[in-house]
């Protein structure tokens, strides 16, 4: 199915008939969903429902898993990312990911931030310095770190490390930021800081965020998708999902009846 | 009840550990020179490592027929032989050379139990068949470096030597004159191997090489060279025409136990000399004993 370029202008991703198997296990079943550009889409659902698995198909991180088989169509900017012509490293430059546990490299703050740009060919020191300053300011870390850019990133607190990871992701100037439960390992203060950050980011980037925390989904997202046992049961505007969801299971999950 | 038993066992283990450490410590503080631990055997032979295999073979045969005998054979080198004797560590000192003047005072009697020739071997592609003692000396001191100087092809000579302290080396260097004024002038370029077997292997596989080994150990993989026109064999060693040879000597002090004398008598007897021959060494004439 070749999509009309005009209609995908406001869509970052268009996913149709997505199925994923881990060996014999059918992890994702017939997923159809649109991810709008420059909006925050939240993916919610109980443990093991496939939301993280789905997230990782969007930047082809499933390629690193042995035995994972992806079928269906995932169009990013109108192009099928699983086609042979698609350059994975270029895809991942445009679609960045932030992980559940902060994972800065065991290098300095500076080296963490310039790693991505260097991989993509930027060697001019002035440009790199500028990237470092810009991204740290975007995540409100600049004042805290400007005097210790060349100390180890592992010396920062958990919340700071996660913001650093977001900055690192921003350093390659992606279009999309995928976030896999980014605050579940952090304390409430750090969590609040990052949620505030999401708000600022969504104007410039498309954000897809997996979260266990429904209140968080309600706070930060424009659109919410509910997953259960590998299936996408409902996707709607966040307002609708949380006030009057179409699907009964969605309603039960939201009201805490299970999950 | 169980607790008490466990505690007792722990205490015992601790005590045993402490005692074994102490014992190891005391044992370690003992004498350090090679082959010098006190032995309870009736007959202890110490000295030349060249003689050692022969002594071991003789001892084995002797102990077969005399089950009560207890003979121990050690090495240490010819240099240690008389010293072990005078220190009371050995009852027989074994040497692959004559005793020298400084050793005479500690030795009451010597027995020549066998003779050994030192054969000069070359790699199969060397077509020189005869060398003089002087030529050997020049080769081994580095004065002659090419086979063409001694009648062979134009090829560099690869010299193989034994290690310092080897009795075989001492015999070779003494008889050829490489050792003179107590100075061993073996060329520094000589490759050194630490056993007869290694020398054989090296000469066999290295083109244009030359080495020396005990006559008993000559192998078919190398060519044997005549020295001063004489090929090494049992008869040429016995009549002295093959120059590079050495005596195997048992030396005893003034206090000779009956067991020691019995063994020496066996070695010097026909049965013992038969064993000497069996092991590839040269038995001595009755009149030279």
């Amino acid at each position, binding site marked *: 199915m070749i999509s009309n370029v005009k209609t995908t202008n406001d869509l970052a991703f268009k996913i149709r008939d997505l199925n994923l198997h881990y060996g014999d296990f059918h992890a994702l079943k017939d997923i159809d969903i649109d991810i709008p550009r420059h909006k925050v889409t939240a993916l919610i659902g109980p443990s093991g429902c496939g939301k993280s698995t789905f997230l990782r198909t969007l930047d082809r*991180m499933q390629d690193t898993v*042995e035995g994972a088989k992806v079928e269906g169509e995932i169009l990013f900017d109108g192009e099928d990312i699983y086609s042979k012509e698609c350059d*994975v*490293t*270029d*895809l*991942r*430059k445009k679609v960045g*990911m932030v*992980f559940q546990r902060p*994972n800065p*490299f*065991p*290098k300095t703050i500076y080296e963490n931030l310039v*790693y*991505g740009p260097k*991989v*993509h060919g930027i060697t001019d020191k002035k440009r790199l310095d500028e990237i470092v300053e810009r991204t740290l300011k975007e995540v409100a870390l600049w004042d805290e770190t400007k005097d210790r850019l060349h100390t*180890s990133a*592992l010396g920062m607190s958990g919340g700071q490390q996660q913001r650093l990871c977001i900055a690192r*992701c921003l350093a*390659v100037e992606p279009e999309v930021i995928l976030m896999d439960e980014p605050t579940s390992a952090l304390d409430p203060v750090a969590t609040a800081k990052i949620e505030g950050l999401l708000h600022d980011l969504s104007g410039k980037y498309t954000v897809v965020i997996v979260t266990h925390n429904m209140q968080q989904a309600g706070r930060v997202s424009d659109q919410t998708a509910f997953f259960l046992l590998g299936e996408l049961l409902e996707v709607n505007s966040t307002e609708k999902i949380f006030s009057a969801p179409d699907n009964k299971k969605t309603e039960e999950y939201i009201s805490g009846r299970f999950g | 009840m169980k*607790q008490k038993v*466990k*505690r007792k066992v*722990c205490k015992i283990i*601790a005590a045993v*550990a402490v005692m074994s*450490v102490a014992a190891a*410590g005391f044992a*370690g503080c003992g004498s*350090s*020179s*090679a082959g010098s631990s006190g032995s309870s055997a009736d007959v202890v032979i110490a000295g030349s*490592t060249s003689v050692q295999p022969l002594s071991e073979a003789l001892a084995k045969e002797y102990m077969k027929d005399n089950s009560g005998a207890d003979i121990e054979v050690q*090495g240490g*080198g010819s*240099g*240690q032989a008389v010293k072990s004797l005078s220190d009371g560590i050995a009852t027989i000192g074994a040497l692959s050379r004559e005793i020298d003047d400084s050793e005479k005072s500690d030795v009451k009697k010597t027995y020549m139990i066998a003779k050994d020739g030192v054969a000069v071997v070359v790699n199969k592609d060397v077509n020189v068949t005869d060398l003089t003692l002087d030529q050997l000396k020049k080769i081994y001191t580095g004065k002659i470096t090419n086979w063409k100087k001694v009648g062979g092809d134009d090829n*560099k*000579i690869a010299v193989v030597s034994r*290690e*310092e*302290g080897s009795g075989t080396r001492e015999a070779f260097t003494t008889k050829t004159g490489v*050792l003179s004024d*107590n*100075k*061993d002038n073996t060329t*520094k*370029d*000589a*490759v*050194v*191997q*630490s056993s007869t077997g290694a020398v054989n292997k*090296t000469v066999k*596989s*290295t*083109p*244009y090489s030359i080495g020396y080994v005990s006559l008993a150990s000559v192998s078919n993989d190398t060519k044997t060279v005549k020295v001063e026109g004489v090929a090494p064999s049992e008869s040429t060693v016995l009549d002295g025409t093959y120059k590079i040879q050495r005596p195997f000597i048992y030396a005893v002090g003034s206090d000779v136990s009956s067991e020691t004398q019995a063994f020496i008598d066996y070695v010097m007897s026909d049965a013992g000399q038969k064993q000497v021959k069996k092991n590839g060494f040269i038995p001595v004439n009755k009149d030279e004993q």
Partner: protein
Amino acid sequence: MYTREKVIEKLIFICAAVSVAAVALITIFIFAQGMPAIQRTGLLKFIFGTDWSPTNGSYGILPLIAGSMAVTIGALIIGIPTGLGCAVFLSEVLDKKQAGFFRSAIELLAGIPSVVYGFFGLAVIVPMIRAVANVFSPDAGATGLSVLAGAIILAIMILPTIVSISVNSIDAVPVTYREASYALGADRRETITKVVLPAARSGIFSSIVLGMGRAIGETMAVLLITGNVAVVPHGIFSPAATMTGTIAMEMSYATAEHQQALFAIGIVLFVIIVILNGAAQAVMKKFGGEAA
């Protein structure tokens, strides 16, 4: 209850004490036996003298030190890239089952006695080197018994050490680092060279130090294939003598003075190893501080 713990504590203390005591005893022994030889010859003349001829009473060990250093450095030059390459291959390219098979094969290498390595070297490597050396300098009359032979065999001997420990270090690098690298658009090669190996560098470095220790202490194998020529080697095809090989070869025949000199070589070897290990620790501290 408390007394039982005390007893166990004392017991394991004794075990530790025994180990330390053993090292101390050996060290004291070597120094006690060897110092007279160094005093007799004079420290500088002993270490820098180029004439090792015990039967002539000359004890200069510079050629031996040079020989040991030459084969060890040669072994590292060959062994480190090979070992690291192997470790990366095992860790990153092969799947678990294949990697397990390869690792068992490499670890078999560690079980081979060093004298067997020596014979293998003598039978296979030495003739090959002789052939190559004769191509380069036909008149030199090279026998193949050489620094190069020693370096090659030692490299094979230390391979299991380097590979095994490096593989462990590389495997221990958290998968999250690799994921972060891939997520930023790096390919596999970049991820391995820029993230994984630097993160594993402290373990890799330890493996190299351990390998170096094994190489410098190796005796039997080098004895058979380096030629034991006590002359400072002037090229990779030159024969050489190592400190360990010389001690092993001459100890059984050595008389008092010679024997003390051999122990003195032991002292020098000991000091060199202490210095090397110390330097390695210092380097590790400086560069390994940030590693995971």
